[in-house]
């Protein structure tokens, strides 16, 4: 169970979140966590579509200390983010409200890691653990 969706157009956003929802359901996540995972993937895929034009969202299963989790990896070679601290502040937006922003996505998951370099792209890894 290791699959990726290339994000080029808005239909790929739908494909990515459907993949995520199916994996979440198969792993045994409840309806609320399925909604959290689906929404987080939709937001990350939309960020790629809006800002990077092209990238990839991958969904993986992970296991650690007897816990099972779902990992969302969002990777693009877009313009990157120059001020990471600023984009992680609630209310910061460069799209005029088209996306909920990364702080919202962070609240939907249990772990959130972001790496970004201007001119190189952005890599986000988010994990939701099965309770």
């Amino acid at each position, binding site marked *: 169970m290791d699959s990726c969706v290339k994000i080029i157009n*808005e*239909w790929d*956003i*739908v494909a990515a*979140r*459907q993949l995520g*929802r199916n994996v979440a359901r198969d792993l045994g996540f409840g*309806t*609320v966590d*399925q*909604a*959290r995972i*689906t*929404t987080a993937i*939709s*937001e990350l895929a*939309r960020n790629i579509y809006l800002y990077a034009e092209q990238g990839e969202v991958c969904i993986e299963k992970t296991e650690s200390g007897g816990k099972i989790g779902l990992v969302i990896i969002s990777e693009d070679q877009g313009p990157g983010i120059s001020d990471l601290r600023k984009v992680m502040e*609630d209310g910061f937006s460069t799209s005029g*409200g*088209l*996306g*909920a*922003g990364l*702080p*919202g*996505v962070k*609240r*939907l998951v249990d772990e959130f890691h972001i790496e970004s370099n201007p001119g190189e792209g952005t890599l986000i890894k988010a994990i939701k653990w099965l309770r």
Partner: protein
Amino acid sequence: MRIPILKLHDTLLISIQWELDDQTALQFQEDLLHKIHETSARGVVIDLTSIDFIDSFIAKVLGDVISMSELMGAKVMITGIQPAVAITLIELGIRLEDVLTALDLEKGLEKLQRELED
């Protein structure tokens, strides 16, 4: 595929039955406004019972179509928001402010009638 809009007296009824992609959501926005214009509807009920998640884009389209309908003189009631949808929308930081809501279609229609009588 387009979302069907039904007319019931002076109210328009919409039940969204499948996952909304961007195009369907934007097409719905346009279709609803045309239908309000065509039918002189005073109220609109949008039922979301079958929707299991709403992201920021769908929320924005919904919020916008509510404001647009109100500009035209029609009141919009949202019904059937599932627990998972309510939880994720708030966690995501999305506030659908000043939106009329009800637990289900039946309560929504009753509440809308009262609003329209005021």
